[in-house]
């Protein structure tokens, strides 16, 4: 599947009505092009969401643009890219629009998504941004904001747009001060005036690991070992600790543990279990801080492991007395596109994430 920009309109001074007109013109041009080429089916416009992407700089915008474009074939929507540079002597707010269509394989439908890029230079232009974004949100479909990098809480753009959002997607992996960032997330979740659901790309990064761990205990004969877990060893590549912490918060909250003490590289629970964090040197293309595995040890020595097995696969092992089982499954592609897609697919709250963050915020 490849993607092409079906239409790109010239830069405009921001005017929501003009932007909508430009987009309509692009759709019409694309539909006419299909007719000219004798394609049998008309182009249909299906947009599932509005996604505001707040980026810090041009490199961030380019990356976000790639991610949004890659998501289009399965989750087409209107992406509003916002690049704000307050420290700029100019006062300039500009927009440009494009229609991005997937070139379909034989027998597949053509899918198009809309992209509106807003560039604000200077403090006055940045202040006008919320007023430019709000009228561009699609009616009656969910509105997401992806704060691409760093901690968003306290930023005026978020404050102004938050009432219009269904979900704020942060990336705790990019937080410079992880513990402080987690406490801020917890405060936002607990704040009754902050209506948007807060979710985290790090939670999506952990999804396969949580899934594979849960799967071990789906088997009724194995499930009683959950109540007998005494040691948890979480291993990750050296780097930001947030994935290991979130995994610990998840496991502890699901098992009803209370984290009472942070002791060097471990957490101790009121129930007497120990969670240890280990780091290993980063190798290959895997990024620092990424999860490499977990080992759970129960009373009596039964052990359960989920570990990376080379690039792209995991192995799950369990040893209970004489019974030793092992299975290999592919690890879902580790990419921003996958993780963002995971978050855009959810509409309701994520109580398990909230519980994990709540527990961590008190322990860190």
């Amino acid at each position, binding site marked *: 599947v490849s993607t092409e920009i079906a239409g790109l309109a010239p830069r405009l001074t921001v005017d929501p009505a003009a932007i909508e007109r430009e987009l309509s013109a692009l759709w019409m041009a694309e539909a006419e092009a299909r007719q000219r080429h004798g394609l049998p089916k008309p182009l249909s416009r299906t947009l599932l969401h509005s996604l505001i992407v707040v980026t810090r700089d041009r490199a961030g915008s380019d990356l976000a643009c790639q991610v949004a474009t890659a998501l289009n074939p399965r989750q087409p929507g209107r992406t509003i890219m916002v690049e704000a540079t307050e420290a700029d002597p100019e006062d300039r707010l500009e927009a440009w629009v494009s229609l991005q269509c997937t070139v379909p394989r034989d027998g597949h439908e053509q899918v198009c998504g809309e992209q509106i890029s807003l560039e604000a230079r200077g403090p006055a232009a940045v202040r006008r941004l919320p007023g430019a974004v709000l009228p561009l949100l699609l009616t009656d479909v969910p509105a997401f904001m992806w704060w691409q990098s760093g901690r968003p809480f306290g930023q005026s753009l978020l404050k102004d747009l938050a009432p219009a959002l269904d979900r704020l997607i942060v990336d705790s992996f990019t937080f410079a001060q992880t513990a402080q960032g987690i406490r801020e997330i917890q405060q936002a979740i607990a704040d009754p005036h902050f209506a948007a659901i807060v979710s985290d790309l790090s939670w999506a990064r952990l999804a396969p690991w949580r899934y594979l761990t849960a*799967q071990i205990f789906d088997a009724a004969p194995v499930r009683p070992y959950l109540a007998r877990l005494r040691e948890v060893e979480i291993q990750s590549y050296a780097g930001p600790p947030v994935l290991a912490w979130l995994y610990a918060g998840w496991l502890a909250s699901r098992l009803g543990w209370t984290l009472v003490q942070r002791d060097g590289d471990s957490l101790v629970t009121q129930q007497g279990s120990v969670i240890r964090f280990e780091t290993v040197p980063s190798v290959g293309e895997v990024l620092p801080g990424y999860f490499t595995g977990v080992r759970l040890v129960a009373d009596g020595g039964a052990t359960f492991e989920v570990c990376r097995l080379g690039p792209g696969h995991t192995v799950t092992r369990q040893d209970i007395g004489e019974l030793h*089982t092992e299975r290999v499954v592919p690890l879902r592609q580790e990419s921003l596109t996958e993780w963002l897609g995971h978050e855009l697919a959810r509409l309701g709250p994520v109580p398990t994430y909230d519980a994990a963050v709540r527990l961590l915020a008190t322990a860190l």
Partner: protein
Amino acid sequence: MLDTLTANPLREGLQVERMPEPNAVVIFGASGDLTKRKLVPALYNLELEGLLPNGFAVVGFARRPIPDAEFRQQMLEGINAFSRNRPAQPEVWEAFSQKLHYCPGNFDDPAAYQQLAALLNTLDEEHGTAGNRLFYLATAPEYFPVIIQQLGAAGLNESPAGGWVHVIIEKPFGRDLSTARDLNRTVQSVFREDQVYRIDHYLGKETVQNILVFRFANGIFEPVWNRNYVDHVQITVAEAVGVEGRGGYYDTAGVIRDMIQNHMLQLLTLVAMDPPVAFDANAVRDEKVKVLRAIHPIAPADVDQFVVRGQYSAGSVGGKPAPGYREERGVAPGSVTETFLALRLHLDSWRWAGVPFYLRSGKRLPKRSTEIAIQFKQIPLSLFGRTSGSAIEPNLLVLNIQPDEGISLRFNSKLPGSIVQVRPVNMDFRYGTSFGVPAPEAYERLILDCMLGEAALFTRDDEVEAAWTFVNRLLEGWERLRAAELPTYEAGTWGPRAAHDFIEADGRRWRRL
């Protein structure tokens, strides 16, 4: 207090909220095409998606004695040729293949079932399959009764560890009402009904399941889904292919057994049923059975008033020459088996009284297409007269099942201009343009459901008998007409002329697909 005995607390909040218990799948007919093309690729894909339990094993059961290694090699070839994820990933296959085993034996040999039982007990120890069993009957239908009886005789109808035992039975489930009842009796002498999963792979298709979501998760359709607003319903299952090497089977079945009795009546039930009280297996199937029981009986003597049959002659499909049905391999030269059928039926219910349902299905039609079209009644009075020389078209809602899954609604719109000209336009929703994620194969969904004990997408005993009760009358009627010449249609056309005359006599016409 952590309640680890009843539910897995780690499962909460995950996208997949239920996972099967550890189990062993036993496939009878392991050397057959279905196993290689569909079943083992489906299991492999479930493993790739991480949807199988850790404790898992597969046992192939067939007559030919071959070692495990050869069975595994055959299955690998099947995955590499037919799986939607191919070729097999070496890392995954290496671990998965160790879970594949083979048990040779004749279907009627009690000793073979004792060996099977011993092997399954060993797998419980070695693979942690916990005594849960799924028996999949993928053999020719004549072996179903003997396999069922032998499973019972060997005590394999109950789990040794207090777990579950489920049995999937492939189609066809009987050749007529009498044989279906006999098979039900045999099956129920060994298994409880809640252990039995009669498979119709059509129900595993994503878009078929979506019929229920479309109808019962949207509030705007139900109020007009009845005799007050609907003029008629057309259900079409058109195939461009011929008998594809299955001439021997098809010649004894015809379109009535191959398509109508199972797939098309299932589509009928989904589109015509009342809302179930819950989305669980028995509540859904209760409503489906009501539809089948509400089909107005067609007396055998009246069959030709309600049904048009046809058989394809030589022609061309998709620009390629196609032989006539009687020239196909395995088909008797003087065969009177129908390859096309058009049928009108009525439902004796308050919701549908007076609304005809037209069903048509055939082989060697111009293209492959499956859809349900609900045509609404004409507006009572046109304010705009006849425009562009034609009357205003009634609204039409089409549920496309394959190949272009989607939903379209036809409504009327004004052509731009200074005079009023009305033209019908389609508002199309295509799954492909909204959810570009590939849907799982029907067999993947159905096997997983069976492991989970979810029976809503499988056919219940009374459902299959109710379908045969209706079809039996048609078969009886045809027995009287056997001597009559079947109308023929040229391969690559939309059936015999009589099928068009049949619906046009009601003042309607088949949709042009």
